[in-house]
């Protein structure tokens, strides 16, 4: 194995974990996803083209594995059930308000369709350009643009409906 290749992987791990956390929802599932992506990347490192962006290549691997999982396990249904259960469950009484607000945002992201969630995480969270995100997702730039717009509007509506927008903004500012 090329040492340089492994080192590149280590550097990008925190961002991969953040991306995977947004896709998979839970920390354990996200780390499983990243681990699987590392293993696939090492097995296919000969396919990586020098001079292209390594992080984009890794994002694409994470996304591909996740989509495979979604298709094979119907993850959308499972994660939706969990989200509703969480909303109705007893939250610890003394939970920090800011954390509650950010949890609410994460749940709202979790309810987005997979393609919109991917666009949102790549562009809004990780700061990729539309063109870079389109390359990762394997779709035209216009598709990313419309997915992102739908995601952002849906997210805003969800947060407003839950009263989370005002509270979240206030709590986030307090952090």
């Amino acid at each position, binding site marked *: *194995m090329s040492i340089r290749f492994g080192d*590149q992987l280590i550097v990008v791990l925190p961002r991969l974990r953040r991306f995977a956390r947004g896709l998979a929802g839970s920390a354990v599932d996200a780390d499983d996803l990243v681990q699987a992506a590392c293993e696939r990347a090492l097995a296919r490192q000969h396919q990586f083209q020098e001079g292209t962006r390594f992080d984009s290549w890794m994002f694409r691997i994470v996304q591909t594995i996740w989509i495979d999982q979604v298709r094979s396990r119907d993850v959308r249904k499972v994660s939706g059930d969990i989200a509703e259960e969480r909303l109705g469950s007893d939250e610890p009484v003394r939970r920090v308000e800011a954390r509650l607000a950010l949890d609410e945002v994460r749940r709202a992201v979790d309810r987005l369709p997979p393609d919109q969630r991917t666009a949102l995480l790549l562009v*809004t969270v990780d700061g990729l350009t539309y063109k870079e995100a389109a390359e990762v997702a394997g779709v035209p730039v216009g598709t990313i643009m419309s997915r992102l*717009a739908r995601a952002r509007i849906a997210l805003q509506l969800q947060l407003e409906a839950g009263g989370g927008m005002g509270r979240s903004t206030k709590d986030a500012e307090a952090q």
Partner: protein
Amino acid sequence: MQKRSDDRLIAYLDGELEVAERREIDAWLDADPAAREKLAALAASANLVRLAFDEVMHEPVPDRLIAAARGEMVLPEPGGQVLPFKRRRGIERTTGTHHWRIGLPVAAALFGLLLGGGAVYLGAGKLVPGGMAGKQPALEAAAADNVWLDNAAGYFRLLASAGDNGLIDVPATGDPREALQKISQSLPQEVRLPDLKPWGLNFRGARLVVAEGRPAAQLVYTTDNKAIGPLTLIIGSSKQPDISPTLATRQDVNLLYWRHQGHAYALVGQADVGYLWGIAKDVAWQLDAI
């Protein structure tokens, strides 16, 4: 039409529009207060989304992922715990003696507060209540840790405020090994240089400092990435017992310190804690320090 407006407004916010389109949106915003309000709400929600996932970047990366990235295998820890450092080529599981202790810094901070300025007196054998006599070595060690970590943070601040090469005793010009050899001549044992280039950190040179009352090397790394550097790594000798990597803070400076087999290490900087954990793991891996 509404959908198209949303698309363009969001692309405007993301800086993805051409100049002409941008001007159109500017004019629209000037004329329509509702559009301005919508833009502000979209910007706020985008900021919240970033915040919601930002904490992942501050978490230590689990060892199983580091191992996976290096093409090695680590057996899973029950309950998904973060694993301790592993030896560079070791794949055996370790037991709980070397676990990273997230709670320890909090306990240490409280402990430090309780000790306060009295730590020196405790270390000198004064003001020690009868029931505390058996704990004196632990108190002395804690007090000693406080002092050398204060110094380590101070060394970092001096260096950061001095700028490029300002206080570096042995600059790394040409072959960095020469700088290491020169600094090692003043130390009880040879110092090895961790390669932190994968983190974007370049070795700039070394300084001779004092850690735990002994001469030590302060290795200086810089980077253009303000989120990570500059960073210093102090490597010294120690007669204290081994301790797991532990986080401490001194005002705006973060320190990760640990002791292993007669060496004391401190990674010092203003980088996010998540980065420091990752870099410290890499250092320990390279130096086989854990």
